[in-house]
């Protein structure tokens, strides 16, 4: 069974601080996605990374896919209260459409 380990599980920071969330596995993924979920809603896609070593930027968010396609990170620069939410990484294996998720990182940004 493929597993995705996400850390930290919970993060509470002040507005303006930087943070990094990690997503690690012993398995290789064909692609890795990051989602954000707000209370009462389903997860919404932030980004998909597909190439080993790939870096994608979305405003203050930087996503990186590991060279071996087994791990990923999400870095947020100058966090804002609007970044508060549950961040989930999700990996799709090389053999099909099955998508597995990490346990999530609950981020709280205080004003």
């Amino acid at each position: 069974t493929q597993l995705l380990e996400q850390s930290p599980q919970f993060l509470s920071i002040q507005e303006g601080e930087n943070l990094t969330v990690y997503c690690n596995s012993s398995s290789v993924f064909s692609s890795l996605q990051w989602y954000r979920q707000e209370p009462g809603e389903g997860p919404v896609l932030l980004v998909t990374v597909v190439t080993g070593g790939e870096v994608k930027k979305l405003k203050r968010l930087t996503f990186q896919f590991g060279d071996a396609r087994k791990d990923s990170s999400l870095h947020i620069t100058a966090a804002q209260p609007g970044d508060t939410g549950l961040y989930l990484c999700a990996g799709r294996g090389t053999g099909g459409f099955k998508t597995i998720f990490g346990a999530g990182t609950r981020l709280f940004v205080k004003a």
Partner: protein
Amino acid sequence: DVKVTQSSRYLVKRTGEKVFLECVQDMDHENMFWYRQDPGLGLRLIYFSYDVKMKEKGDIPEGYSVSREKKERFSLILESASTNQTSMYLCASSLARYNSPLHFGNGTRLTVT
């Protein structure tokens, strides 16, 4: 905009009842998924379907079954609900491309008493 609609936001059922959770998507997606979400465990895949009448077990299929008679509709069935099936259930759909994102509904919070 893709819309995935789950028929109920909240459900309360008794132990032993047969429970149906319905999900409909309006974007002609080939793939549909059922996950359950529990604190500290993230989203765990119960079943998924890549075509009408086709289904595959996910990581935690025990106690669940699914039905996909039409492309747009994917139903999750709890044959005999138990208290450990109290959870948030999320339905998702995606295109049949290897890096297609999942589009989620807003979830059904099921409580089994």
